């Protein structure tokens, strides 16, 4: 449905010898020779109009002795993504030109590919490890890299069920079973050779100067990893001149668990509960994108009722996500939990519904390939209707009045954290923050999935691109979500909720697919590759938090340190999906 279609411009004809069509069965897009990557990428951006890069990830084809980097780009005027690839021989050092000069939004994603696959992106301004720690040896996402306590390539692991009895591998293996470090490296004794250098290497603007005869120094302040306003264990190293931010760099990876490697070991179905742990506020929305990608490869059609249930759960999830954002934003602004608890009251009611249909309030594990796991019963349906038709519209209005008419709130938000629409697109910002910059891009309309093309709703847009507009835009989105919900609840029909029979193992044909949805925080995409076995060959997640954080420095420089907290709050990161 949304598989990249053949473009009007045939790149292979336009660049003979430089670009070839990807002819592998199940694959699509273009393969660009790495020497000409930047040239062709510039053409794709400037002539073909693909102005935003959404996904960049590496794949290790061990048997073919090849490293591949896949790029997904889209037009902010709408339409499906265009996929192109660059390949390199799998001999270290693996080098591929960086596309940061074309799409600045590739910065963090290229660092991630370097960190996990060891691909050197030539021309990248700041190629360092990002998720793994500085002293780490090896590239953990390569197919031949074995994690600690490694047993087999794919689950289910035989050792867990000796004669049908459950036993955890960790209880047997002693620490250090197959943990590899650099030669002569002892993790217990390691200290960075120059800690300041390692921690603040990127803060080149640090300086001390003599002003009016007084020597003034900048202060380096670590916001995080233990900090109440970084929403988890995110760290931002800030250089301050008094209260003013001179430069700020994100440091992440404290919650990194190599989700993608786990995903490659899991069977296709086993990954669904794992997706809940990415953005743990929106577990209902996370699996949707993954299911979409796998359904695309398997060619399943989702039953009518299941499509409606997916929309209902997805939009409820969006409402409660924005409510949490408002509450937590007010906490960040220093109002001691009062608005947060008001917002939580409504959220609790939505979570009650999630609990009723899926059995869990936050880790829902509800979507399946070809539908959802169980039907909504009558009582829950009645609850949803009461909530959507009677309670939420008034309550949202009330919360909006409470928050947006506060003078201090407006003075803190207005004109702060400006990011121009051009920069927003260049830095691959997606979701509410892009729309608050005046770019009406919403995947539900631009590249529709599910049954969103049936509903009547607007894509709210604001134009000032400051914090206040980002707040108002999310409030507008809640109202639109309610509109969608009201239509969906009226249209929903009886019927099955899962295509075919429920099953544990799935046969996924060889190929690749990229599924993308408009998650509450921005574009959530899953790039999956199957080699026909019971496990994904590659399972990559393009998370909105990770990509949106690229533009943070641009927004923060020159503002006060107190604004940084609000800006970060409005980027709406969640560490589960930032660190993966």
């Amino acid at each position, binding site marked *: 449905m949304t598989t990249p279609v053949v473009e009007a411009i045939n790149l292979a004809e336009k660049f003979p010898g430089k670009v070839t069509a990807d002819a592998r069965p199940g694959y699509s897009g273009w393969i660009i020779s790495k020497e000409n990557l930047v040239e062709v990428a510039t053409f794709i951006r400037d002539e073909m109009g693909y102005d935003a890069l959404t996904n960049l990830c590496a794949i290790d084809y061990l048997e073919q002795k090849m490293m591949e980097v896949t790029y997904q780009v889209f037009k902010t005027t709408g339409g499906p993504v265009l996929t192109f690839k660059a390949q390199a021989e799998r001999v270290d050092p693996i080098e591929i030109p960086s596309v940061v000069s074309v799409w600045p939004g590739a910065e963090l994603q290229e660092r991630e590919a370097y960190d996990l696959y060891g691909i050197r992106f030539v021309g990248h301004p700041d190629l360092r490890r990002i998720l793994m720690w500085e002293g780490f040896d090896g590239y953990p996402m390569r197919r031949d890299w074995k994690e600690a306590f490694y047993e087999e390539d794919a689950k289910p692991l035989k050792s867990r069920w000796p004669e049908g009895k459950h036993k955890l591998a960790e209880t047997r293996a002693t620490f250090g079973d197959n943990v590899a470090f650099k030669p002569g490296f002892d993790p217990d004794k390691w200290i960075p050779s120059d800690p300041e250098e390692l921690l603040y290497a990127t803060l080149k603007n640090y300086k001390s100067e003599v002003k009016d005869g007084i020597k003034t120094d900048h202060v380096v*302040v670590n916001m995080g990893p233990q900090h109440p306003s970084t929403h988890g264990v995110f760290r931002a190293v800030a250089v301050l001149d008094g*209260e003013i931010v001179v430069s700020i760099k994100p440091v992440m990876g404290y919650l990194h668990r190599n989700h993608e490697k786990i995903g490659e070991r899991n069977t296709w179905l086993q990954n669904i509960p794992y997706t809940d742990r990415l953005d743990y506020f929106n577990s209902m929305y996370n699996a949707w994108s993954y299911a979409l990608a796998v359904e695309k490869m398997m060619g399943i059609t989702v039953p009518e009722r299941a499509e409606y249930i997916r929309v209902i759960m997805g939009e409820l999830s969006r409402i409660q996500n924005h409510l949490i954002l408002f509450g937590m934003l007010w906490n960040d602004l220093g109002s*001691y939990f009062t608005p947060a608890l*008001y917002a939580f*009251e409504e959220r609790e009611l939505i979570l009650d519904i999630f609990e009723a249909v899926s059995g869990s309030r936050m880790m829902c594990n509800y979507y399946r390939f070809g539908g959802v796991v169980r039907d909504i019963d009558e009582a829950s349906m009645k609850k949803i209707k009461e909530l959507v038709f009677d309670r939420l519209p008034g309550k949202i209005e009330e919360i909006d009045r409470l928050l947006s008419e506060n003078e201090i709130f407006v003075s*803190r938000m207005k004109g702060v954290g400006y990011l121009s629409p051009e920069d927003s697109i260049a830095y691959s910002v997606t979701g509410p923050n892009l729309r608050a910059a005046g770019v009406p891009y919403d995947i539900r309309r631009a590249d529709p999935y599910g049954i969103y093309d049936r509903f009547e709703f607007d894509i709210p847009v604001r134009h000032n691109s400051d914090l206040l507009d980002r707040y108002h835009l999310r409030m507008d989105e809640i109202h639109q979500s309610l509109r969608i919900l009201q239509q969906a609840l009226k249209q929903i029909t009886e019927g099955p909720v899962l295509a075919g029979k429920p099953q544990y193992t799935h046969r996924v044909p060889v190929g690749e697919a990229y599924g993308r949805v408009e998650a509450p925080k921005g574009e959530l995409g899953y790039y999956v590759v199957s080699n026909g076995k019971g496990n994904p060959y590659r399972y990559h997640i393009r998370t909105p938090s990770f990509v949106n954080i690229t533009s943070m420095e641009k927004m923060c420089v020159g503002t006060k340190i107190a604004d940084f907290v609000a800006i970060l709050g409005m980027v709406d990161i969640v560490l589960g999906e930032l660190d993966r």
Partner: protein
Amino acid sequence: MNFWTDPIKLAFDGLMGLFSSWGMAADAAAVVINLLGIVGLISAVMVLDILLVWVERKVVARFQDRLGPNRVGPWGILQPFPDIIKLILKEDITPAGADKVAFNLAPILSLGSVLFLWAVVPLAATIYGVDLNVGLLYLVAAGAVGTLSIIMAGWSSNNKYALVGAYRMVANMISYEIPMVVALLIPTMLAGTMSIKGISDFQLEHGLFFFLTPLGALLFLISAIAELGRSPFDLNEGESEIVAGFHIEYSGMKFGLFYAGELLHAFTFGAFVGVLFFGGYAFPLPWGATNAFVAVFNVLFKGMVFYWVIMWVKYTVPRIRIDHMLAFNWKFLVPVSFTLLMVTAIFHSLLKDTGFWPYTLGMFLVNLIFGWLLLEMLRSRGRAEREQAEAPSTAAQAAHH
């Protein structure tokens, strides 16, 4: 002279008789009895402080749709005691790089500065620590000791967050003491004395100062909140930005002292609003003028009411940003306070001989008109600023089309 009007005198005489019978010299006995009185006052205030912990938690819970503490004792009223036990049992840490003397002195000074204040609170016509003839000056000076303790804590902690908190406190203190002092000049001028007891007594005969200068009372309340470092002016603490600001390195009972100091400070300033602008110990129950126990109730009741107002503000609004805070003070509060002082002075001298009703109503009306003019000026200024801010963008849009 009986138990109801002057229990202190009664106790003093009784103890004096007792000590004399033990053969103690009268001077020495007076010193001992005064010391006992100080200990008694401090103990009473500290017991009140323990109650405040419960009040704060319970009231906040109600603001936030919660129940609050409800397990220990009826309505959870004994909750502060487990809290205190927990704080005492915690490890007492002094960071390695800290300036030990300043670091350990700061929490004591913080609570001490509040206790100093209670020396001049007239709890009743006959119950007060001391009737200083420069009482208001003493109030400001003792408040500055509390600020000093915060700067000491921030500076000595050897922590960047604490240091940023201390910087902010310096900016805060220098700024907000000015409108506060000017706001205090208004009751001084009206009563013709700087003695807090004098101001309190003056209102017995001439009516509440709130009706003579409602704006002055508001000004004092705002600058008191700023002086306290309570939300929206809690920049020195700034939980979401600089984690806990000046007290980030404090643990156990040292943190507890800061916490207790903050609560008591807020309550004390609430009590001062009551004493200076709402008729001291004889309002709302008029028997307070003759009955010491009713008087104490009056003072504590009004303290609690204004403490509630301060809490209400704290748990409703977000934190103001530092440049906004300084702009608000220097560009608004300072000029307003000086203008208000002049206006009050002029109309006070014009109207004071016209009798009770014309004087009170006139002063109230003057304040109302002054406030209305102020709001109108702010509105027109805001409108002009908005138009100025919007003008270039419309011009740019026109050029664009």
